[in-house]
């Protein structure tokens, strides 16, 4: 994305990559400053904010144990479930309308709109991941959560969620750049997605005819694998379609990148 298609004097790929890394690094630092500033705990908000969300939901679910009619330990269930919601929802929300407030930065030739999206995605992914890790460690320390059964599977499930969330973020970002309507529609859609995203249920609890339908949502496979990793196969019977989840996320990513590229030719610096 570094050299424009109109420049037939192309920059070598390795140099383009170096420039892009530099630009994304600079955008990351700037993003942290504009969002969190230098006041009180500053950039710690990056993961404290998602942590507070997850903590609140965990407390609520623990108080109303009835929400899930199962014998699964509720704290682990809430932490794994809500962290995954925080991940895909924050990625999409932060990419929505991300270009407009950053138009003045596009005056600098090397800043592309893809870089703006990537820097925001990296921040959200970093924040959500740190929040998940810290919550698990803290709850383990105070005895509210058992240690994970299989960290490898948890990492795998989280990676699937990260892939899907990045694709969703780029897609929503490019779409909202194109029309304001998309931004208005995205909020109700994300609301409806939350209860069916796999955060509040296990696929196994669904009636059998609904189970394959649930797995059409790529994030459901990610959460299932994450939970299988956390609880172990003895406690949960997870259902996932990893190949489908990964290929559908990659397909979404491909479409989103094409849309970003198209938007880059249309967006004018302020």
């Amino acid at each position, binding site marked *: 994305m570094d050299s424009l298609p109109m420049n037939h004097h192309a920059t070598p790929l390795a140099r383009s990559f170096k420039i892009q890394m530099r*630009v994304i690094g600079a955008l990351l*630092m700037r993003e942290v400053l504009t969002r969190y500033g230098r006041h009180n705990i500053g950039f710690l908000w990056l993961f404290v904010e998602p942590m507070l969300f997850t903590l609140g939901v965990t407390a609520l679910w623990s108080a109303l144990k009835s929400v899930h009619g199962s014998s699964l330990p509720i704290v682990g269930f809430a932490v794994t479930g809500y962290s995954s919601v925080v991940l895909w929802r924050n990625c999409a929300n932060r990419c929505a309308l991300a270009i407009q407030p950053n138009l003045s930065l596009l005056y600098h030739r090397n800043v592309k709109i893809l870089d703006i999206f990537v820097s925001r995605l990296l921040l959200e992914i970093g924040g959500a991941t740190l929040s998940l890790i810290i919550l698990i460690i803290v709850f383990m320390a105070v005895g509210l959560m058992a240690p994970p059964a299989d960290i490898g599977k948890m990492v795998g499930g989280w990676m699937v969620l990260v892939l899907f969330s990045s694709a969703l973020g780029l897609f929503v970002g490019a779409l909202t750049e194109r029309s304001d309507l998309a931004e208005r529609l995205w909020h109700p859609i994300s609301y409806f997605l939350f209860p069916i995203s796999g955060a509040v249920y296990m696929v196994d609890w669904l009636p059998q005819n609904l189970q394959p339908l649930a797995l059409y949502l790529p994030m459901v496979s990610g959460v299932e694998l994450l939970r299988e990793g956390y609880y172990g196969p003895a406690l949960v019977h997870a259902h996932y379609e990893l190949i489908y989840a990964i290929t559908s996320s990659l397909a979404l990513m491909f479409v989103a990148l094409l849309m970003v590229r198209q938007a880059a030719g249309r967006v004018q610096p302020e």
Partner: protein
Amino acid sequence: MIELQGVSKSYPTRHGTVHVLEGIDLCVTKGERVGILGRNGAGKSTLIRLISGAEPPTSGHIIRDMSVSWPLAFGGAFQSSLTGLDNYRFICRIYGADYRDKLDFLYEFTELDRYLKEPIKTYSSGMRARLAFAISMVIEFDCFLIDEVVAVGDSRFHEKCLHELFENRADRALIIVSHDQGYIRSYCDRASVLSDGKLTCFGNVADAYEHYQNVY
């Protein structure tokens, strides 16, 4: 060298496509100082954005064999909620320049002192111009693109700019767009006139000025 070959730019509007620039050819080599004269709305700022690479042309080619600054203009290029210093660091990072050893220069050139720690949105346009100029000097481009900014600021700022650009950086190229021929005359070796989306090049400023008087 910067070379524009048959560059055109059009924008879709509600009243159909507007062709702002059509078939522009321009070549600027190292050390050259080129002025571009044109009235308000002639497409000067669009042309300078294309040269800088901030926007792609609709058709044609732009070759940049030297490092080119962003358009040094009244607005744009800064994040207005960040302080002058934060913007300075951000822009240095983007262009891979070290911001630490040039801090003294920044303070000295801009004379903004404590304002450098205030958000850009509190700056006047003269203060922004001083900051933009100083940052571009720190990054040391081969070619500076100047969009009317020399017109703002007091005579002291002018003197400093002249000193930095023409004495300390006499080997750099300069492209100035303006509707004021006075500036073009005092800063440029040659000039071109932009009218009706076409660019007419002249070997010296006097000829360009005469043509400018005739078209407008």
